[in-house]
């Protein structure tokens, strides 16, 4: 570990640390433009010059290009270095338009800061400034090339880090230009990071253009709750609206970046137009009501139901977008009041898969996204990283950039921004491919696996399976890898796969590898939901039966919309209309909210402190950024009513509403005053002991594991299933899948994401398509039990045989099936 002296202070840093980073560890931020920790050094901007006084280098050098070494003495304040940096700024500013007053970057601009700090003020060069024509880069990014200082950060991020190939450096010398071949939307779903990474205002957030100044914003560390990864963000509030979301650095989770769905998918919180207007006021029987009256009304109505039919006639429904606070309150209410639930999952299989994943993760196996980026072999089983958890795809790319082979076993025609091996296996075959690859990799040293390992190894044998030729080479690479990671999804995979993947990872571990396991779960709150539903096995499907049978008479639905996920819409409508009472608590203007007998508005993640446990078991906390309420925008002013309250400010955290309407004030917090989640989170589940009063609430950062290391002996189930097809070999399995844009509730209610949507299509294998007489681009109608939907066909060799892959897209009326799994016979797909 080299020791060096920077500005007369000594520091010891890890081998390979650049001098610029060593200085930062001392709190000395050397000016820089091109250098970014995630992108590495290129020494293009010459801004980070410092003077080396002693050691292997002498004189003014670029601190981003030189590794810290023993005996170095560095000065950042030496007159020669200061003058050097001042000249560099002067040259960079030669062409800068100085349009800071009308530039959205103004006030948070690295160029501004460093120009001011260098002391440069007067442009001595009398010549004209070069100017450019800007390009249209799509709905999210505004291009303003005149401001460019040619640091290359954008193109390096876009091409090298993310692997997209439509934005780059063009021209030469003084005409140097960063842009696309021609005007058009950027293809990368990570393009929003250009806003964060550009040291000046070349790329600015179009959705926030001319709306704000940095110093006017309320800012708070927040989280993205749109997928299970839980990326760190900074939320920016202003005038009671969320104005912008930025990436927040988290070394273990998302690094420096976030995806565009997370960055631009916040507008639901401000409410949209028409049917997307956020419901900010409580309602009773469709008519506006004051907050206390709605709460008292709901409480009374629920008490009546409980008195009349017993408390178990009230069903409590949550979801995977609930915060842990709301989930715990739901669980507590059910425990103390005797309500039915909590119900967090729609489908029992998904509940069991999620639970299996949560139970399989232990401190040894679980890896973070940073560790994925450092893996030397990644097996992706039944997961579509780019669509289900976009930042995971970026982490995979970092591994691939360091030459780690990535093998994807999935029925979908997966797209990832790097080269990878794809085995298009049907969901039933995933374990066969995974197990066989693993078996071939560890076969040589099976003797050293121990009894349990050998047992599991035997169970990975599959009869009648001829592995593809490619597998021999890949298994050799897996065999020689040191830090392999298995990334397993929980959406399309069959029930046993999550546990099987964990056993595979354990097998790799006992064969001497630092193997890791990384699951993708259905949503941000899935981890907590799975733990809390460990004993409460009810799912929404069976709740519907209870309603039909008259067992359940009332529903309390907290931040959940069955109309979004339930596969049979007709049946759902009939069931809900049978209810005597439907209490909805939500921030989306959902169909459930519209039908509710009593509605109470919930706070969004931006308005209340929310804990989420991400898919690797990391407990994270999003701080509220603003109080919320009716936003002031578009010339509209909230109602001018004499009142001491914030207009539209009735919303409460869902857990608080539940606490009040369940009459829990007596049980918790002694009947009066306020409660804090620290009082009730530990009471909901012993596993959450560490998240409460003793350790201090809120908790942000540590991981929580439900499992202890060791084999479970449950993975062997895989041997039995070997991709047998159903009774009718001509029929298809309908796989409903997630897309990055268009399938989540956030995307349904955020008009800011509309521009990123593309029309849904159904993927199928080319041989299947030929047999069914279909061609790429054909429009078909697909007949289901409860009706038909129409969709375009996309034919691919890389889609597994025997499956139809359809997104749960908001533009597609798909909720016409009885229940999963759904099989569609060939004659039910008709060309139109």
């Amino acid at each position, binding site marked *: 570990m080299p020791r060096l002296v920077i500005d007369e202070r000594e520091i010891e840093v890890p081998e390979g640390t650049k001098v610029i980073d060593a200085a930062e560890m001392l709190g000395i931020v050397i000016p820089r433009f091109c250098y970014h920790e995630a992108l590495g050094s290129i020494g293009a901007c010459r801004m980070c010059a410092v003077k080396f006084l002693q050691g292997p280098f002498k004189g003014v050098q670029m601190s981003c290009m030189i590794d810290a070494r023993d005996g170095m003495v560095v000065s950042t304040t030496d007159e020669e270095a200061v003058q050097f940096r001042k000249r560099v700024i002067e040259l960079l500013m030669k062409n800068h338009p100085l349009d800071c007053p009308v530039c959205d970057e103004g006030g948070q601009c690295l160029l501004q800061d460093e120009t001011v700090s260098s002391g440069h003020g007067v442009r001595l060069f009398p010549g004209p400034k070069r100017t450019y024509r800007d390009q249209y880069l799509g709905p999210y990014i505004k291009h303003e090339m005149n401001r460019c200082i040619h640091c290359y950060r954008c193109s390096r991020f876009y091409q090298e880090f993310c692997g997209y*190939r439509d*934005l*780059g450096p*063009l021209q*030469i010398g003084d005409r140097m230009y960063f842009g*696309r*071949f*021609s005007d058009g939307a950027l293809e990368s779903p990570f393009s929003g990071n250009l806003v964060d990474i550009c040291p000046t205002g070349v790329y600015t957030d179009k959705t926030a253009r001319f709306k704000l100044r940095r110093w006017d914003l309320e800012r708070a560390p927040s989280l993205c709750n749109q997928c299970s990864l839980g990326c760190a963000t900074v939320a920016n509030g202003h005038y009671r609206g969320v104005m912008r979301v930025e990436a927040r650095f988290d070394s273990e989770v998302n690094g420096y970046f976030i995806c565009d769905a997370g960055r631009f998918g916040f507008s639901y919180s401000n409410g949209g137009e028409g049917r997307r207007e956020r419901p900010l006021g409580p309602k009773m029987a469709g008519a506006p009501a004051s907050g206390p009256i709605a709460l008292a009304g709901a409480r009374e109505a629920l008490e009546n139901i409980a008195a009349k039919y017993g408390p178990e006639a009230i069903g409590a429904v949550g979801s995977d977008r609930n915060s842990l606070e709301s989930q715990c309150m739901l669980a507590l209410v059910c425990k103390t009041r005797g309500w039915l639930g909590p119900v967090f999952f729609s489908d029992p299989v998904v509940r069991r898969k999620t639970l299996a994943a949560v139970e399989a993760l232990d401190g040894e196996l679980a890896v973070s996204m940073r560790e994925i980026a450092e893996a030397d072999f990644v097996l992706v089983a039944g997961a579509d990283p780019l669509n289900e958890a976009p930042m995971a795809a970026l982490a995979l790319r970092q591994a691939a950039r360091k030459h780690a082979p990535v093998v994807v076993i999935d029925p979908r025609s997966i797209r990832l921004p790097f080269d990878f091996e794809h085995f298009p296996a049907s969901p039933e075959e995933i374990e066969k491919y995974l197990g066989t690859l693993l078996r071939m990799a560890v076969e040589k040293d099976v003797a050293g696996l121990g009894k349990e390992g050998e047992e599991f190894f035997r169970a990975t044998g599959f009869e009648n399976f001829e592995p593809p030729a490619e597998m021999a080479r890949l298994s050799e690479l897996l065999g020689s890898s040191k830090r392999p990671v298995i990334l397993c999804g929980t959406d399309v995979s069959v029930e046993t796969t999550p546990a099987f993947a964990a056993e595979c990872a354990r097998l790799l571990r006992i064969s001497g590898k630092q193997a890791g396991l990384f699951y993708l779960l259905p949503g941000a709150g899935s981890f907590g939901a799975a733990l809390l539903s460990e004993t409460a096995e009810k799912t929404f499907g069976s709740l519907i039966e209870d309603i039909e049978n008259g067992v359940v008479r009332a529903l309390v639905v907290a931040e959940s919309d069955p109309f979004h996920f339930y596969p049979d819409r007709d049946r759902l409508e009939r069931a809900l209309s049978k209810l005597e009472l439907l209490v909805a608590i939500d921030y989306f203007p959902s169909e459930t909210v519209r039908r509710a007998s009593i509605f109470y508005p919930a706070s969004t993640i931006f308005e209340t402190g929310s804990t989420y446990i991400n898919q690797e078991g990391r407990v994270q906390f999003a701080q509220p950024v603003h109080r919320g309420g009716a936003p002031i925008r578009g010339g509209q002013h909230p109602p001018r009513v004499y009142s001491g309250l914030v207009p539209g400010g009735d919303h409460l955290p869902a857990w608080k509403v539940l606490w009040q309407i369940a009459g829990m004030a007596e049980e918790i917090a002694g009947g009066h005053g306020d409660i804090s989640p620290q009082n009730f989170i530990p009471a909901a589940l012993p596993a959450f002991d560490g998240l409460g009063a003793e350790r201090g609430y809120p908790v942000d950062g540590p991981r929580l594991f439900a499992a202890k290391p060791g084999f479970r002996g449950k993975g062997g189930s895989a041997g039995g299933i070997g991709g047998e097809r159903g009774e009718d070999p001509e029929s298809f399995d309908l796989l409903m899948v997630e897309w990055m844009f268009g399938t989540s509730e956030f995307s349904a209610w955020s008009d800011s994401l509309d521009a990123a949507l593309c029309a849904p299509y159904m993927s199928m294998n080319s041989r299947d398509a030929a047999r069914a007489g279909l061609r790429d681009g054909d429009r078909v109608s697909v007949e289901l039990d409860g009706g038909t939907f129409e969709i375009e066909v996309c034919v691919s060799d890389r889609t597994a045989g025997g499956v139809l892959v359809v997104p749960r897209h908001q533009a597609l009326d798909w909720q016409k099936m009885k229940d999963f799994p759904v099989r569609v016979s060939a004659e039910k797909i008709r060309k139109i």
Partner: protein
Amino acid sequence: MLPDELKLKLREVIAGAESPREKAIDVMFEIQELQGWMSDEAMVEAAELLGMTPLELEELATFYDYIYRSPVGKYVIKVCDSTVCWLEGHQRVVDYLSGRLGIPLGGTSADGLFTLLPVCCIGYCDRAPAMVINKRVFGNLTPEKIDRVLGQLAEKADFSGSE
């Protein structure tokens, strides 16, 4: 649209390479030989043949002086503006050519015959000032020599030999 014959030839050129993109410049030269310059359509088609995105090909095309992304005259006159030529009177050569052809640097004459461009060092420092016309290099330029060369060009339809 690139003619099929050319496409066939380009595919052959590309097939001979270890990785297709190493032939990017050769492919663009072939297309330019035939069409004179690289139009947007030609860029898109060439990129497809090379397995590159149009942007990636554009990065190369706009980096190199000898690839034209806008139409040029039949004869592209490039006057060296590198140090030695600059010392030996490159500006006089540019002024003379501009005056004679009636076009500024970067311009193309009305008859579509000549385009005037600067170039950075063509290795003729010992015979500065120098210029290059299509693939022929001319050194020790004087107004008389320029007149002679341009006269020849105007007469000769074909101009492919070297001096």
